[in-house]
């Protein structure tokens, strides 16, 4: 199912040709800002959930949250490199508004899986729209890292860690 959805968008007319340079600010900054918002949501999810975790799950969440912060910092830098100023992060409560209540480890890891899937889908949606090969490569490297997070989180819940050959964030 996932692969058929991917192939539906596969035609030689799509515009994703490589352009040299840092990118096109008018085209790329709104896309980068959108995925920066997704990263900030992930950071807020881990911040909210960490207090409910112990042991291995806590260690894992801390590590993944740190990598989410690195993604956000990189995206902010890319926006600055394009000559624009990234919007400042909103208070954590803003991003946490839509989250379910978290009673235990299962709730936290399930939320983390949801936010990782959302991030992967956002990156896959953004990738063909970015104007340079360099930006696409960076976005793909982050999406791949999010997919790795997803596997570790699924494994922590004793679910199949890699259930699909194509990782689309729709799982």
């Amino acid at each position, binding site marked *: 199912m*996932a*692969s058929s959805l*991917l*192939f*539906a*968008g*596969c*035609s*030689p007319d*799509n*515009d*994703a*040709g*490589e352009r040299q340079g*840092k990118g096109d600010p008018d085209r790329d900054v709104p896309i980068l800002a959108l995925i920066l918002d997704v990263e900030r949501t992930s950071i807020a999810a881990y911040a909210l959930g960490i207090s409910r975790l112990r042991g291995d799950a806590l260690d894992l969440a801390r*590590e*993944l949250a*740190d*990598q*989410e912060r*690195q*993604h956000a910092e*990189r995206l902010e*830098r*890319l926006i600055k*490199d394009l000559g624009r100023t990234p919007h400042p992060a909103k208070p954590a409560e803003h991003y946490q508004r839509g989250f379910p209540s978290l009673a235990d480890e299962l709730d936290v890891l399930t939320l983390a899986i949801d936010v990782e899937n959302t991030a*992967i889908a956002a*990156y*896959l949606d953004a*990738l*063909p*729209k970015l104007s340079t*090969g*360099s*930006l*696409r*490569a*960076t*976005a*793909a*490297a*982050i*999406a*791949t*890292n*999010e*997919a*790795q*997070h*997803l*596997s*570790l989180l699924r*494994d922590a819940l004793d679910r199949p*860690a*890699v259930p*699909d*050959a*194509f*990782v*689309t964030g729709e799982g």
Partner: protein
Amino acid sequence: MNADDSAPRSDRKTRRELAVRSLTLGAAAAGATGMPLILPLAAAAVESKSDTRILTGAVMLEHQAAATYDAIVKATRDARLSGLAHAFGAHAQEHADAFASILLQREIAPPPPPRSAAIKRANRLSDGAAIELAISLEGAAVRFYYDAMRNIEDGGLVKIGAATMANHGQHLALLRGAANREPVPTAFEAGGRARS
């Protein structure tokens, strides 16, 4: 290796050398087992500006991965390693079939899978060698798609390539874990050489 693409000077020659080096490392590991040395051909393909050549390289790479995992399944008695290799080999075959199908839609014959005689020679791997081989090949696969992101023209292929790269990244993380290494040592997974 971090995907530090915002560095002001990105040198295409250096990137090409890195791509060839990472895929050659995978090829060297494969060659030690008697596997066909096709990964350098995939490295050349990914640096081309032709979607068709990149697709062809992807099919070759995925065939190589599927054959490698098939050999590991036959070689190992470790149930966990066998389970990982079985699942990852099936994924690689799905990738190969998908990219071959796109080539056929474009009326281009996809490359054939490697000959089984070469694969049979890989059946004497120790479990440790098998995991290292798989880590090298998965790192090379991630790097292939990472480099492909720069050169693919078709937006649909960009998306499929990224979904495939993400899957190889997941394989890589679990294999590193199986080798008692840090599963996700970097926030920017660009593949290449296996890291400890």
